[in-house]
């Protein structure tokens, strides 16, 4: 067991727990994008940064990959954290302006303008889809291709991989909800969700509320 202080509250957690998980246990919410409880931590988006105080100095670290240590002092919502987080989300938004998840996150943080040049890349390279395919589906059909500015999520040779079972998980887990769908340039399309599912029902006066309609979503009016 290690004892650490998060936002001034002392807590004890098992060794090997990450700071993010420890905070979650205490009910402290840290925003995340590339973290998923069922997948290995990856630390790609940096939205979950927290301030680690060491004496007079402090550093910013991604809490989802930061192991809890004895006598650690963590601030999850200091000025420094909030300011930096805002810039990070702003940058992410500049590369994916159409993502609902990112827009909501930005709105919550009080960002109402993106100061950076908007370049819609449709992917924030969070690696969720890649890890989902690998770890949950044990398939390994998609992965990162290229590097640097040309790094992207793709399948080998841009054809549907033999391993793909059309589970649609990559689409489902994506916080940007568009890139994994490559149906346009694959032979069969990757997730196949659009081919598997019956047409989506909508209310006759659909207002585009983005809630799903039908069995688990809202009522059809």
């Amino acid at each position, binding site marked *: 067991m290690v004892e650490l202080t998060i936002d001034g509250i002392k807590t004890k957690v098992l060794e090997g727990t990450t700071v993010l998980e420890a905070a979650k246990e205490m009910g402290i919410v840290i925003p995340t994008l590339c973290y998923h409880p069922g997948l290995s931590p990856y630390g790609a988006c940096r939205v979950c940064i927290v301030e680690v105080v060491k004496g007079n100095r402090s550093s910013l670290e991604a809490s989802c990959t930061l192991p809890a240590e004895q006598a650690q002092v963590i601030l999850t919502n200091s000025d420094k954290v909030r300011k930096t987080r805002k810039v990070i989300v702003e940058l992410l938004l500049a590369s994916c302006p159409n993502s609902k998840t990112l827009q909501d996150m930005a709105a919550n943080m009080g960002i109402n303008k993106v100061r950076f040049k908007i370049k819609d890349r449709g992917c924030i390279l969070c690696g969720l889809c890649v890890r989902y395919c*690998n770890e949950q589906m044990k*398939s*390994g*059909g*998609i*992965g*990162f*291709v*290229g*590097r640097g500015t040309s790094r992207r999520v793709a*399948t*080998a*040779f841009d*054809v*549907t*991989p*033999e*391993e793909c079972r*059309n589970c649609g998980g990559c689409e489902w887990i994506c916080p940007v909800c568009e890139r994994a769908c490559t149906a346009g340039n694959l*032979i*069969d399309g990757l997730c*196949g969700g659009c*081919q*598997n*599912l*019956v047409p989506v029902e909508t209310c006759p006066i659909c207002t585009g509320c983005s809630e799903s309609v*039908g*069995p*688990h979503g809202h009522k059809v009016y």
Partner: protein
Amino acid sequence: MNSQTLYHYSLYYWVKQLHQSPLDVSNSLCWEGVEKGSQTLDNERERVEAIVGEYGASRDSLISVLQDIQSALHYLPEHALRTVASQLSLPLIQVYGVATFFKAFSLKPRGEHIVNVCLGTACHVRGAPAVLDEVKRRLGIEPGETTEDMKFTLETVNCLGACALGPIVVIDGNYHGQMLLGKVKKVLREIERRTQRDETHE
């Protein structure tokens, strides 16, 4: 529609699709092979298999295998990546990801000689663009391309860490510093002469 029917529905479509489109790997056959005729392709295949065979089935040897194939064939053909993936029991995408990550690997056929012109800041101010233009003119290709006789591939880099020698052109790992337009001609000639000599020797 309740969730049960929805589930059956999607299952039905899924199974139907499985039957309709058996995965056809042959239509993704590598384009290089088609052009090159089946004999070279068979030859390539054999060499790839020999190289892969040397390494056994250890996943750690992925990069070494790819390096060997790259230096033997001057590129990594699709069938080679597939062979490597199945031999090392790695997902194809992982092999593909590594092959596209490193600049040393190329998925397109590359020439015998790699001409690398540095366009880094220091070389740039010392006149690298003019050197590049001269090389382009002499070889008749753009950066990233290969001459038709498969002799030269032209590439550019951003700083080789030898700025004091700029502008720099690296040919097959040999550094030619302080390049001048006249020197480009000399160096390229030299290489052509050397390959000719090698060929007659053989």
